[in-house]
């Protein structure tokens, strides 16, 4: 069950890989595969150089991290990495500073940047099911380019007490690149939504961690009314470049304002559902919140969990870096970004005295709906010593960020705790 990648060309290696793995799965099943892996992994060092166990051959994407700069890797299989706040200072998040959230393994098509014969199927509750090539998308629908915030639903999970399960993201599972694609609403208008259409279900060709090729990694969606607002796009480019392997090549959805898990990578199908989508990680307690507020640590029955939709109002301090020394009595600029799942950031305030007094920051207009907004404030620290800058955005409904974690939930989603940095003032 070993493949030597040095002795085959890439094409035949792929064929051998998938054929032999399929055959293996068929004859021995998953239990045996798990057992085999259990035996193989710890003795990997004893394998001849270049020889890798078949079921481990699919790439986690870890090698691609060399093009990322300064990210904190939370896990290597699946690959998850976040960005320190001070590296998120750009208005448009560059590739090297965009977080990575993988639920499974990177599909071979993405690793090879091979979109040959790639199609996007639109089916389900539509009058005219579509099968679109990438060229169809580019030529038949208006192309749009916009800056859209993408934020992991679990960003801020690390701050819930007691701890909640999943990657312990702090503040850096967010970014605001510029995406190019077509409006999902335009595509759905061409397909002709039936009256029975209520939800989208997104599908892709990424590979499940178990190696089971039949298993969905993740398949989430959004309500039809949300995607018909026109902000949701099917993107093929980020910051003017084709999507990369880690961010969904060749196509992905961007559902701005929603947890990024709705923004399916490696997109090849959108199934229009006649009910709330029930794909992988739509059900149970994945990306769900209790229907009512619960005490920290409470276990909530599945039937009382509802899908997380709009991400809450939030902001970060991106400059200066936490712990920076500044001169007492001299004015310094503090800045960052603010964003909101509802797309209506209203005001921005900061405090340098632990929340006792707040000063309003200037808030620049959004480049487009659902882009994050630059805020700036000048602060003068009165004397030498230790200070914290606390940042608090408020949305158009008067809802602002709490100084400690908001209401606890079993999986630790939607934590919009105020971001704080330290400033050390020298005499």
């Amino acid at each position, binding site marked *: 069950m070993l493949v030597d990648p040095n002795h085959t060309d890439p094409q035949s290696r792929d064929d051998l890989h998938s054929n032999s793995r399929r055959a293996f799965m068929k004859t021995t099943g*998953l*239990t045996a*595969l*798990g*057992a085999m*892996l*259990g035996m193989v*992994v*710890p003795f990997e060092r004893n394998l001849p150089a270049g020889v890798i166990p078949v079921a481990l051959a699919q790439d986690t994407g870890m090698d691609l991290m060399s093009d990322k700069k300064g990210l904190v*890797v*939370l*896990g*290597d*299989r*699946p690959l*998850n990495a976040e960005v320190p706040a001070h590296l998120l200072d750009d208005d448009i998040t560059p590739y090297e500073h965009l977080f990575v959230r993988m639920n499974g393994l990177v599909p071979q098509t993405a690793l090879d940047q091979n979109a040959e014969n790639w199609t996007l199927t639109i089916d389900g509750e539509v009058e005219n099911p579509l099968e679109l090539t990438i060229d169809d998308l580019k030529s038949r629908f208006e192309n749009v380019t916009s800056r859209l915030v993408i934020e992991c639903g679990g960003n801020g999970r*690390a*701050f*819930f*007490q*007691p*701890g*909640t*399960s999943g*990657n*312990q993201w*702090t*503040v850096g599972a967010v970014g605001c690149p510029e995406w190019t694609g077509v409006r999902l609403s335009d595509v759905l208008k061409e397909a002709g939504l039936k009256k029975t259409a209520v939800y989208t279900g997104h599908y892709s060709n990424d590979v*499940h*961690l*178990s190696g*089971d090729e039949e*298993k969905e990694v993740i398949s989430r969606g959004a309500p039809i009314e949300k995607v018909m607002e026109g902000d949701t796009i099917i993107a093929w480019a980020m910051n003017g470049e084709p999507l990369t392997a880690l961010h969904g090549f060749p196509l992905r959805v961007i559902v701005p304002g929603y947890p990024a898990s709705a923004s399916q990578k490696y997109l090849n199908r959108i199934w229009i559902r006649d009910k709330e989508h029930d794909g*992988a990680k739509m059900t*149970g*307690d994945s990306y769900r919140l209790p229907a009512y507020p619960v*005490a*920290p*640590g409470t*276990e909530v029955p599945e039937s009382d969990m509802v899908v997380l939709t709009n991400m809450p109002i939030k902001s970060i301090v991106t400059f200066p870096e*936490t*712990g920076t020394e500044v001169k007492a009595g001299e004015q310094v600029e503090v800045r960052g970004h603010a964003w909101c799942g509802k797309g209506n950031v209203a005001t921005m305030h900061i405090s340098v005295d632990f929340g006792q007094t707040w000063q309003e920051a200037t808030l620049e207009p959004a480049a487009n709906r659902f882009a994050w907004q630059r805020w700036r404030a000048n602060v003068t620290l009165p004397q030498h010593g230790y200070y*914290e800058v606390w940042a608090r955005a408020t949305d158009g409904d008067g809802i602002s960020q709490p100084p*400690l*974690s908001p209401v606890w939930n*079993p999986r630790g989603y939607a934590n919009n*705790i105020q*971001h*704080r*940095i*330290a400033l*050390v003032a020298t005499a």
Partner: protein
Amino acid sequence: MKHLFAMGAGAVAALALGAGLALAAPEPDPMTALAGRPAGADPLDPMTALMARPDEGTGGEGNAELGGLPEGPGAEDTFYQCVACHSTEIIKQQRVTDHRWDELWTWMVERQGMAEPDEETKKVILTYLKTYFSSER
């Protein structure tokens, strides 16, 4: 850093006191979660003091041969069972309740295709996880 460790010891005493008061008054009191919080891992990053739990819970680096899992009964079984799908990094990040570990186990078997070992091994692994990656102890 010495100064921080000293603060940590004080925090433990305050936490013990807080627990005693909680016993006397069974009503939930959100201030107990704020009393005697340990200092953050990085004094120059105030967010580290707000995190669920600082890193000392795993007892340092752990066993490199077992993906850095801390030594203890069940470490090896846990490693072999889990790395069939994912690396140990995601395990080491967790600080969750016993109930949540049971739920995660069921979720991995029923939804994520995890091969379930025999009952005895399952018990050993869950005990290990609940011991070293817990919000309860």
